[in-house]
């Protein structure tokens, strides 16, 4: 055997929620996020895997039900397979839902690439007493079939072995394709000939696609294939004429649109395979998932359960988070004391470390436990499959906003972090729905706002901290709803895309999966603390320390000068100059608002001291206005960047910055003025 590893590309395709990402993680040892709602993998991901002198580049493609040109994901999958020509395509099939899953297999087969069927979730199928004759299935499909239980990492080695044998040309392949019936097959044959005869078309496409695939797609009236092919031949060409003839002929026979006939035939083929190779001991019994759904999606009980789960999420976050928060708080204070007592000079270095670094980063790190808990909760909601039910329950309310239930998933994810939430909007089919969901997402209060609420509520609303914090979350949700309604009316008029979504069966979340998921998202916060927040804290320290000789963090420091110059803008909201500096830096990351106050008040990470300092410059009313402003104003840099990426234009990123800033100012102004009217100024 050669010493040099042989490189090969393996693509993973399959239905949404069939477990592709789990198989991907098993193959590559990766830690890509796995959820239990259709569409978790919104872009293709790559990893590497080794086996017997082979190094595979494994590509996890988005889940699709089909390979039409109707959705972006489907186009991504078929373009990748056609242009990149992977050595093997692993078709991940959910054994517990084999019939629907094999429908995609029939289409992959037509692309003319070597396919290995990874028959995943065998345990679930066995649990439902579904018996699959693997050998017969393989024979009928003409493809190698590997049974797997992805969640328990069973079957991975066998899959690698079969992939290698497929690359070596040793695996069992038989040329099987769906027979579309005599009349259709005749037209397919004629079209294939016409395609091959058209010189430009065959030169452009035949390397990538088989003529049969192209012919079937033309009959199916596939937008993209039709556009690509017909733009490569003259309007009166033979292919064009043949296509017209074939369609007219088939329509006169079937009296139905041809795509429907093609779909029927594929299902017919799958149905035949399943009838032969799959035996069910009990038929269509109510599954455990159905029984749980009888309660959780119940017309009357569904909503209270949903509200309870949301309440539980926040209760756990604030209640359980309190304890480790105190420990970190104590640790930070200890650290500051340690530096103070051991490092007397130079004064600037002591100040940089205590006020800048410990004060800035420490003030934010205290909130790490709460952030991790909220991510665990969101992870559990996703992994159990409950998130999809939440979409079902909320559909009616979302409908009223001109959106549908599926838009609700990114909204809940926004409570964790707006960045993955904005990316999760890719599962929405309609561009308009997606734009609205993206634009209002920053109004969902993410974990970065928590430190600000925690600090201010502790200082001003110690008796009812929970209620005040809850009111801010609610304010965010209400405004998101209102803005969605406005955007639908004025920016993206029209009806929302019809609501169609698969409900995955409930699954127990695995401890490993939940922890990995929590760590992946939570560690971003840690990294942010070590980079952006650290840098921001040092800059704020510098601005508070300079010019030399000035009292640290005073109005005559550089920070003070900036703040005072812009103070007139926030004066009508009852804020003073420090608020300007805090909000200005909070644009980088909202946690920095807290660090800034630590620095500007000259008290570092000592939360009691910050509280005392804040009480000098805010009243409960202005404190509440400030929290509302922090919630609503300009999303952080990372969110702006992801909005720009997902909408594909700076225009919408700039629009989000502008509208949220205006909204924040207006809402804070109204709260302040109304509060004053009611005599809440003191």
């Amino acid at each position, binding site marked *: 055997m050669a010493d040099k590893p042989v490189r090969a590309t393996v693509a993973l395709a399959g239905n949404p929620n069939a477990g592709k990402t789990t198989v991907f993680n098993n193959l590559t040892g990766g830690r890509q996020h796995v959820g239990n709602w259709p569409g978790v993998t919104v872009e293709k991901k790559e990893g590497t895997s080794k086996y017997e002198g082979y190094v595979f580049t494994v590509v996890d493609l988005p889940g699709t039900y089909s390979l039409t040109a109707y959705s972006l994901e489907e186009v991504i999958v078929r373009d990748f397979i056609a242009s990149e020509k992977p050595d093997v395509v692993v078709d991940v099939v959910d054994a517990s839902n084999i019939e629907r899953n094999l429908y995609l297999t029939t289409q992959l087969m037509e692309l003319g690439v070597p396919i290995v069927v990874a028959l995943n979730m065998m345990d679930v199928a066995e649990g439902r007493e579904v018996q699959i004759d693997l050998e017969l299935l393989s024979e009928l499909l003409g493809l190698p079939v590997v049974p797997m239980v992805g969640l328990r990492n069973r079957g991975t080695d066998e899959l690698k072995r079969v992939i290698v044998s497929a690359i070596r040309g040793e695996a069992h392949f038989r040329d099987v394709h769906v027979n579309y019936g005599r009349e259709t097959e005749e037209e397919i044959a004629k079209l294939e000939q016409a395609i091959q005869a058209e010189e430009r078309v065959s030169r452009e496409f035949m390397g990538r696609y088989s003529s049969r695939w192209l012919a079937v797609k033309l009959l199916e009236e596939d937008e993209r294939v039709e556009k690509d092919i*017909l733009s490569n031949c003259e309007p009166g060409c033979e292919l064009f004429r043949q296509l*017209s003839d074939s369609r007219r002929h088939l329509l006169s026979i079937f009296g139905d649109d041809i795509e429907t006939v093609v*779909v*029927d035939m594929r299902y017919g083929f799958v149905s035949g395979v399943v009838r032969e190779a799959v035996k069910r001991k009990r*038929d269509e019994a109510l599954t455990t998932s159905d029984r749980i759904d009888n309660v959780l999606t119940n017309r009357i009980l569904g909503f209270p359960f949903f509200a309870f789960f949301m309440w539980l999420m926040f209760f756990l976050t604030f209640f359980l988070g309190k304890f480790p928060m105190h420990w970190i708080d104590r640790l930070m204070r200890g650290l500051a004391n340690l530096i103070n007592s051991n490092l007397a000079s130079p004064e600037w270095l002591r100040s940089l470390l205590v006020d800048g670094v410990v004060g800035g980063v420490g003030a934010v790190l205290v909130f790490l436990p709460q952030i991790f808990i909220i991510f665990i909760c969101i992870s559990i909601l996703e992994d159990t499959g409950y998130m999809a039910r939440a979409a079902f329950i909320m559909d009616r309310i979302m409908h009223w906003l001109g959106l549908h239930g599926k838009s609700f998933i990114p909204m809940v994810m926004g409570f964790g972090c707006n960045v993955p939430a904005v990316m999760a909007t890719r599962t929405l089919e309609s561009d308009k729905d997606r734009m609205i969901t993206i634009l209002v997402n920053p109004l969902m209060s993410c974990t970065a706002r928590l430190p600000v609420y925690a600090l201010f509520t502790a200082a001003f609303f110690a008796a009812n901290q929970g209620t005040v914090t809850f009111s801010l979350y609610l304010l965010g949700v209400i405004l998101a709803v209102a803005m969605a309604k406005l955007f639908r009316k004025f920016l993206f008029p029209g009806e929302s*895309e019809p*609501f*169609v*979504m698969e409900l995955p*069966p409930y699954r127990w979340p695995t401890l490993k999966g939940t922890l990995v998921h929590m760590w992946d998202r939570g560690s971003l916060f840690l990294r942010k603390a070590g980079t952006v927040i650290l840098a921001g804290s040092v800059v704020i320290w510098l601005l508070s320390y300079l010019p030399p000789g000035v009292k640290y963090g005073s109005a005559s420091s550089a920070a003070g000068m900036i703040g005072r110059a812009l103070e007139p803008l926030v004066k009508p909201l009852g804020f003073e100059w420090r608020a300007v500096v805090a909000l200005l830096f909070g644009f980088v990351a909202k946690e920095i608002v807290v660090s800034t106050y630590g620095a500007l008040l000259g008290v570092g990470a000592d939360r009691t001291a910050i509280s005392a300092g804040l009480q000098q410059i805010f009243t409960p009313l202005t404190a509440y206005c400030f929290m509302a402003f922090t919630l609503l104003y300009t999303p952080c840099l990372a969110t702006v960047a992801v909005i720009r990426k997902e909408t594909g234009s700076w225009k919408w990123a700039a629009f989000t910055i502008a509208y949220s800033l205006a909204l924040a100012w207006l809402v804070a102004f109204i709260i302040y003025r109304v509060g004053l009217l009611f005599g809440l100024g003191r």
Partner: protein
Amino acid sequence: MSASGLIPLGFMRPGESGVLAEIRGLRHHDHDGTGAGHAGPKITYKRGHLHHSDRGHRLVHRLNHMGLIPGARVMVMRNNAPGPVIVAVKDTRLCLGRGVANKVMVRPGAGVEGSPAREES
């Protein structure tokens, strides 16, 4: 129930089942706007003209690819009218918005157990 014996999925109660007959209002290219279906195939598109971008057509095919095809046996699991519906098609549970559920026409009660393929084919 209509004269054809078909009933929209959205009107069925939980536990009721039947065979999907058609997905209404969207099935055919309605060239002349009369709803009469095909007046004959019209292939009048020019280069690059996207003649299939109409939502109805896309919806029908999305539903087809998810397993909702004529002849498939369906069972309503949950009907939160005027909210969405959960329908079982084989081992799949699909959540359909009210608008969609009312376009899916079902022949109640009938059907061949275990065969999702087109009845008439």
